């Protein structure tokens, strides 16, 4: 059976109806489990103290913030090429989730930065490109909301997503260039791998899995909602015609 069959709205609704409950359960278990593990049962880091516990929210949300955009990009491509309505609606459904993930990453990062760097915010390339990503989400959502006709909105937003992705990558390089240019904030750069010892890593993996699952569940559920809304307006239109 081809995956494209799920592009049929009814089929999509029927199959998600079945898989959603276990997914809800799974994401809830993983997230609460991971967070409890991380919050209660891991030691403090020798340098960062208790603040290291923030990592269990910060990293998974940052991960999903980027991947949500990536998913929207793929869905937009599918809409542009094959015009499956469900994929356009899925892109629409994912955007607010991605926005919230970005916001969580930004806020937890800012809160973390206060004790670690002594400032809420620095124009570090990584942080800055996250802010730019946030702006892209805002624009994308605003465009969906501004247009009444669903197909027109799907076409326009998907092209915006494609063009925006190119510019987002460009911005990433530009920002890198910009802040290294004056050699500022180098001491603030995020040190990868080094800090993350195994004790912290395992609960982190659980949380990451939980966030991924949560994203999937939310997008499936919200796509279902969008499909129902479309179906409703289609039915209403048909009712109008038969009058």
């Amino acid at each position, binding site marked *: 059976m081809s995956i494209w069959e799920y592009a049929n709205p009814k089929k999509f609704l029927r199959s998600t109806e079945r898989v959603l409950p276990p997914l809800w359960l799974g994401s809830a278990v993983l997230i609460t489990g991971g967070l409890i593990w991380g919050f209660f049962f891991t030691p403090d880091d020798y340098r960062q103290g208790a603040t290291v516990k923030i990592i269990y929210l910060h990293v998974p949300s940052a991960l999903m913030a980027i991947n949500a955009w990536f998913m929207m990009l793929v869905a937009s491509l599918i809409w542009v090429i094959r015009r499956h309505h469900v994929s356009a609606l899925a892109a629409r459904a994912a955007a607010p989730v991605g926005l919230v993930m970005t916001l969580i990453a930004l*806020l937890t990062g800012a809160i973390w930065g206060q004790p670690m760097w002594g400032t809420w915010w620095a124009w570090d390339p990584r942080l800055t490109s996250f802010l730019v990503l946030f702006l892209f989400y805002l624009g994308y959502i605003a465009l969906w909301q501004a247009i009444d006709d669903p197909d027109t909105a799907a076409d326009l937003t998907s092209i915006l997503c494609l063009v925006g992705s190119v510019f987002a990558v460009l911005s990433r390089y530009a920002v890198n260039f910009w802040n290294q240019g004056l050699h500022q904030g180098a001491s603030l750069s995020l040190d990868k791998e080094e800090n993350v010892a195994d004790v912290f890593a395992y609960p982190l993996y659980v949380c990451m899995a939980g966030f991924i699952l949560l994203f999937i569940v939310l997008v499936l559920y919200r796509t279902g909602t969008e499909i129902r809304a479309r179906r409703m307006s289609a039915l209403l239109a048909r009712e109008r015609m038969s009058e």
Partner: protein
Amino acid sequence: MMPDLGKYGDTVLSAYGVSLLLLLVLLVLTLRRGAKVRAALRDVEHRVGRNG
């Protein structure tokens, strides 16, 4: 039960608070809109089914 967060208690707790709050808001909005649309669709389907 509560682990000792040391001098970073406020920091960690506020980070958890903000994140969970945002997740909760997203969840509530999603579910509420879902329920609303579902109910509205059921109404419309019912009506359309009756009329034609």
